[in-house]
């Protein structure tokens, strides 16, 4: 893979939060690459650091977060080192974030119109659109996300809209900015399954027609299979397996990935899966070695103290696991 072919490269990103004097190491050396024009998946349990990664890309982490090390290269430039003006430009034209919870992503006391037009104005700052032009663009974007009666929506306040409508408004706001990279943080998860499905299909269509690059964050492998060409499996703040979506699904190599797939309900299955025993570790006292070690059925002695490196499984598929390295992991 050549560097200039990648729109985004995250290298060894570590992020911690400080809550009441306790430092929690949420992201530990995250590596993630998005080739131009591709949809890349990021999958993992709730609380494993997916949202933190997305926010770090745009430099909008909560005020108690601290980026400890790493690089986030957007078209070869490190976002973390950008001066304010360049960072603003990156946010305006480079990447846009779709939030997980549409009900909290819209300002409750300000009309949709004001929110939409303000963010649109800055997204197209260089083009000097008039407010009438901006308004037309907003209406167009609302139409594009299949919202009926966009003019009424523009004059509404968020609480007057349904959850699905709010999510569509958020997507429209992000897409109308015509950015190069779309960060979709579990879009629709907070909504009904049917609406969630609609939203996903909508994003997929838009990505295909607009030729965007996407990071699709989700905890659902089904979504990954439908939407992405590459996948990264995240566990407790680190990426444990990654590569071509087909290859990863064909030959899952990390015990965690295997366990995740076992959790998928299958039509031919014998009932509801048992889930993965144990839970994500405390980030204030993470295990010294592999973070999955306490829950892992294949755990070796060295897993306790050593952090596994990358092992190539296939041409476009890698895993970070000692057991897999030694060929001791065999999918059921």
């Amino acid at each position: 893979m050549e560097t200039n072919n990648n729109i985004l490269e995250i290298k060894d990103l570590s992020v911690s939060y400080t809550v009441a004097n306790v430092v929690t190491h949420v992201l530990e050396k995250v590596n993630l690459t998005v080739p131009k024009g591709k949809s890349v998946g990021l999958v993992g349990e709730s609380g494993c650091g997916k949202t933190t990664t997305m926010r770090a890309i745009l430099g909008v982490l909560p005020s108690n977060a601290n980026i400890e090390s790493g690089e986030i290269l957007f078209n070869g430039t490190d976002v973390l080192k950008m001066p304010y003006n360049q960072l603003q430009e990156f946010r305006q034209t480079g990447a846009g974030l779709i939030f997980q919870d549409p009900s909290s992503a819209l300002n409750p006391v300000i009309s949709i119109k004001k929110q939409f037009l303000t963010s649109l104005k800055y997204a197209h700052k260089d083009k000097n659109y008039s407010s009438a032009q901006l308004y037309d663009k907003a209406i167009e974007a609302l139409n594009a996300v299949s919202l009926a009666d966009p003019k009424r929506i523009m004059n509404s306040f968020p609480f007057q809209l349904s959850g699905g409508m709010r999510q569509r408004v958020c997507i429209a706001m992000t897409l109308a900015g015509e950015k190069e990279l779309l960060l979709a943080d579990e879009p629709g998860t907070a909504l009904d399954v049917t609406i969630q499905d609609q939203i996903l299909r909508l994003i997929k269509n838009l990505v295909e027609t607009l030729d965007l690059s996407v990071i699709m964050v989700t905890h659902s492998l089904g979504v990954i299979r439908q939407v992405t060409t590459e996948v990264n499996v995240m566990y407790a703040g680190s990426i444990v397996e990654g590569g071509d979506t087909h290859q990863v699904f064909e030959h899952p190599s990390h015990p965690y990935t295997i366990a995740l797939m076992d959790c998928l309900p299958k039509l031919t299955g014998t009932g509801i899966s048992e889930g993965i025993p144990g839970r994500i570790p405390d980030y204030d006292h993470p295990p010294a070695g592999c973070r999955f070690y306490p829950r892992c059925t294949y755990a070796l002695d060295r897993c306790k103290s050593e952090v596994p490196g990358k092992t190539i499984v296939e041409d476009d598929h890698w895993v970070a696991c000692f057991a897999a390295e030694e060929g001791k992991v065999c999918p059921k």
Partner: protein
Amino acid sequence: MLLFKSIMKRLASSIVVLLGLTIVIFALMKAVPGDPARLALGPNAPEEVLEHYREVNHLNEPIPVQYFYWLSNAVQGDFGTSSYTQRAVSQDIKDFAPATIELVIWAGIPPLFVALFLGVISAQHKNKWPDYLTRFLGYIFVATPTFVFAVLFILIFGYWLPVMPTIGGRLSPQFTIAPVTGMYIVDALIGGQPAAAWDAFLHLLFPALALSLGKTMQEARITRASMLQNADKDYITMVTSQGVPKKIVNRRFLLKPSVIPTVTVMGMDFASLFGNAFLVERIFNWPGLSSYGMNAILNKDSNAVVAVVLIIGLAFVGTSIVVDIVAMILDPRMRQARTR
């Protein structure tokens, strides 16, 4: 339309509350120990005169009937005679109210903007010296009772750095101001007397400060807290992530949702100024309704006490209705919420 409907609902429930308040106050008046006729007419009044007084004032009727008589008089603005000033209570109130209104307006409205300003500055410079200073003063001022402020001001600004007129009152004796609005500073300016206006301002400044400093810092603190809390909300992250400059985000998207909780608190604080004014007016010899009420309380002048408490209750309820309206204008969600 919704706005109008919720205001009407609010008014209706306020009337119920005020009626309830009259019952409480009336009960309080009846609980004053001693014969009301004796209290009103003095120890030397002969029994026939007392009996006549009781008859005229319906004191021989059962208590609920008395309440009815009292209420129908009160609604018409007749609160009886003050046993202390020997004048109609309603006349006393008319004479003393403007001074209190002037004081409360000055202690209520300008500090509101100061509080918002300090809160915003404090939040924007979190953990830098403007924030530390605001918070430090905030802790001290919030912990200081208003009467302590008043006493300390007299000592510091009345005697040690004599900038404040120590005799108190509203105006130095060499000035006379033709009454127009009843508020001296305004009236002096209307009458073209800048020196008198300045004098009135100096008289007003310290009582107003004593009344408002604690509340102001409290409100600044709430504004700061809600600014900081909202700064990490998704809807702020959303616009920031779209590349809207920080200044615009703060001004257009952060300030409004952060100010709404403060406005509600401010309204209640404004209304409670009438209460705290009781001692401040007395300490500064401010000839207002509250010092009149305080004298009435200390002299067990029940007609006057009841009238003052009721008037203040009215002002309190009126203010909270205004606050609700402001909050509804600011916060579209409240227009729909059930108001109680």
